[in-house]
């Protein structure tokens, strides 16, 4: 279960060996990224690409768009580079065929099965308030959270659209993970006691949370957050963003609540559960 990429899937199924995977990754090193290809094709300089990459840390946009926006590339150039990339980029499956680790027929069959398996994790678009940095990543994070509440915890949920909030209220358990690198934010999941217990019984496959130590019950919320956020980093890397996460921690929110930290914009997504319980996802995005 969970988001995964194709090479991992092939290893898990025993289709390819670890050595074949490493050889195929070596083979793929000849693939050029958009910026490198644009330089190789003589459209831009390395300096222009470096500047665009630096801007990309704040602006959630593909590198081609940023190079067009600063006048370094035209739309025609972008099309030409993308076409050359499509023609020359070797995907992991192709690399494995080229090194003889699998056949074309095997590849096609495995791709179809992989696509089917990953379909539940394909992200739909979640609307975010305007002007949230790296909106694409956080929209994806919210969507993945909702999906994993259903897929991992077995809880039917109905999330509300996200809205900017100045107040984070206390709750029984608030678990937090910090994102850093290509996109910076604190991810908080706030749950009442009943939902905390539901999470624990789901993850630990218990009939009841009664008698379980508080530490274990609260830890299960942290572990769920860890699972979701780990999967977010995978999807973010598929979107071209290299982000890291901290291990989860539990937050103590004062009785009167607390605001986002300086330099953050907090977006709240209330999540209603079918049985009447509520939880809240809050993503405090660094501006």
């Amino acid at each position, binding site marked *: 279960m969970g988001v995964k990429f194709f090479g991992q899937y092939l*290893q898990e199924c025993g289709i390819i060996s670890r050595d074949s995977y490493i050889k195929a990754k070596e083979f793929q090193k000849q693939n050029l990224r958009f910026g490198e290809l644009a330089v190789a094709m003589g459209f831009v300089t390395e300096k222009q690409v470096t500047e665009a990459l630096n801007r990309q840390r704040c602006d959630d946009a593909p590198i081609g768009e940023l190079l067009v926006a600063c006048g370094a590339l035209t739309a025609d150039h972008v099309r030409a580079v993308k076409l050359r990339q499509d023609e020359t980029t070797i995907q992991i499956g192709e690399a494995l065929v080229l090194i003889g680790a699998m056949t074309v027929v095997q590849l096609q069959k495995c791709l179809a099965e992989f696509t089917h398996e990953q379909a539940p994790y394909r992200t739909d678009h979640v609307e975010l308030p305007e002007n949230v940095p790296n909106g694409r990543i956080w929209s994806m994070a919210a969507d993945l959270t909702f999906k994993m509440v259903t897929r991992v915890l077995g809880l039917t949920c109905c999330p509300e659209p996200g809205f900017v909030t100045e107040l984070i209220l206390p709750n029984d358990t608030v678990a937090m993970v910090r994102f850093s690198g290509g996109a910076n934010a604190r991810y908080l999941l706030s749950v009442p006691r009943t939902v905390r217990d539901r999470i624990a019984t789901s993850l630990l496959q218990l009939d009841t949370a009664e008698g379980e130590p508080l530490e274990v019950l609260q830890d*299960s919320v942290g572990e769920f957050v860890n699972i*979701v956020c780990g999967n977010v980093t*995978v999807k973010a*890397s598929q979107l071209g963003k290299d982000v890291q996460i901290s291990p989860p921690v539990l937050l103590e929110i004062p009785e009167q609540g607390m605001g986002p930290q300086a330099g953050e914009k907090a977006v709240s997504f209330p999540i209603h559960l079918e049985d009447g319980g509520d939880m809240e996802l809050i993503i405090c995005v660094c501006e």
Partner: protein
Amino acid sequence: MQTVLIVDDSLTAIRQLETIVKGSGDFVCVGAARNGVEAIRLYHEKHPDVVCMDLNMPEMDGLATLRYLRSLACDVRVVVISSVGCRDGWYLQAVELGAARVLSKPADAGMVLKALRNV
């Protein structure tokens, strides 16, 4: 009966893996560590056959722990079970450091047992 050391900062993940190992019939859990530092201490104490390792941990993460185990030139088999394990960079590093299998969280019991038995 083969011995397993579980390394994960999450009590929940430890409980999940202990339950899976206990129900396997051919593996027994000899200890659980909450970070890489504890894992190394327990490794030297218990000499497990297999280590189930998380990656994203405080104090000493899974990749650093894996690197240390490899430096010992020991033949302990490591199965990585992590929410970040399936990121391309982490995955490749784990595999290059000799992880026999890398599973994504949440990993179901069947996948874990298959990994333990086939490493």
